[in-house]
């Protein structure tokens, strides 16, 4: 699968990049980081224009994210509310929605590029929780443009080491994700231990 996708980008260039990042943003697990690094390397070799690459990567991802948000907003709310009534979790749902509204912006921004595997889930959750669309769009555009710029630039700088760079970035992303999870769990554990007599 990865081989075919990367072949498409090396052969067909910007249109393939646009389509793949858009599909990935909706939720299909595709190796977008590696793809952007390869595109950066292609830019360095003169096989693709930098501005076109940045535009295609950003616009494709943003459109995919917007589709995910729309699915959550117009299709997901009814389903989640129905489930919450069935299971009597209305208060829990409202609490989650309040959290998304409060922490939404930085969360949306970081999951566009630093913790990108979570991105499609955040799109759906933002739509379902009714996070304001104009704010979602703002953080989404900011995050996707940052992601495209960071990974394409890294690929451009380390253009002869794309696979090594992808390995390092992959492990770094997992390490950051695990560290964030450990922080949340550690905080919860601390609160519980302090509360206990």
């Amino acid at each position: 699968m990865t081989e075919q996708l990367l072949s498409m980008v090396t052969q067909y260039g910007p249109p393939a990049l646009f389509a793949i990042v858009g599909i990935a943003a909706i939720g299909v697990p595709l190796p977008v980081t590696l793809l952007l690094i390869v595109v950066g390397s292609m830019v360095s070799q003169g096989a693709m224009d930098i501005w076109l690459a940045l535009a295609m990567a950003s616009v494709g991802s943003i459109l995919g994210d917007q589709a995910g948000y729309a699915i959550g907003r117009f299709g997901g709310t009814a389903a989640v509310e129905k489930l919450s009534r069935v299971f009597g979790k209305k208060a829990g749902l409202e609490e989650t929605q309040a959290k998304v509204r409060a922490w939404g912006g930085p969360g949306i921004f970081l999951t566009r590029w630093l913790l990108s595997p979570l991105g499609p889930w955040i799109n759906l959750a933002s739509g379902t929780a009714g996070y304001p669309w104009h704010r979602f769009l703002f953080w989404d555009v900011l995050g996707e443009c940052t992601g495209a710029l960071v990974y394409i630039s890294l690929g451009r700088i380390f253009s002869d080491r794309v696979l090594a760079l992808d390995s390092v970035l992959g492990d770094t992303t997992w390490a950051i994700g695990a560290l964030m999870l450990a922080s949340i769990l550690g905080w919860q554990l601390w609160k519980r231990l302090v509360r206990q007599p």
Partner: protein
Amino acid sequence: MADNSRPTLAIALAFLLAVTGALVFASRATTQARHFRTMDQPIHGWMSIPFVAHTHHVPPSVLFQAVGVQPRQPRDHRSVRRIARELNRPVPEVIAELQKAIDQAKRPPGGPPK
């Protein structure tokens, strides 16, 4: 007490697991970053010949010549996989030929074969 301590224990275990995961991935990332410049760069079927040439710092003409293909102008974007299909040859065979050409191109003149 037992009801109250069970979720705390579960959170503690999850916390330890997350810390372990963070340490393992951070250590892997550090090791890979340390060997960044010396790590092998394997040739894959999705790569174009100019891409392989750039990655291994050899002229593309050497690689086109090695597989017996005339490069398209102005730039040949065909992947190794596609070239192999056009030549009606297995991909690993074409990759092995490219690797051999890279090794030869990198060998100092008069140096021993690798």
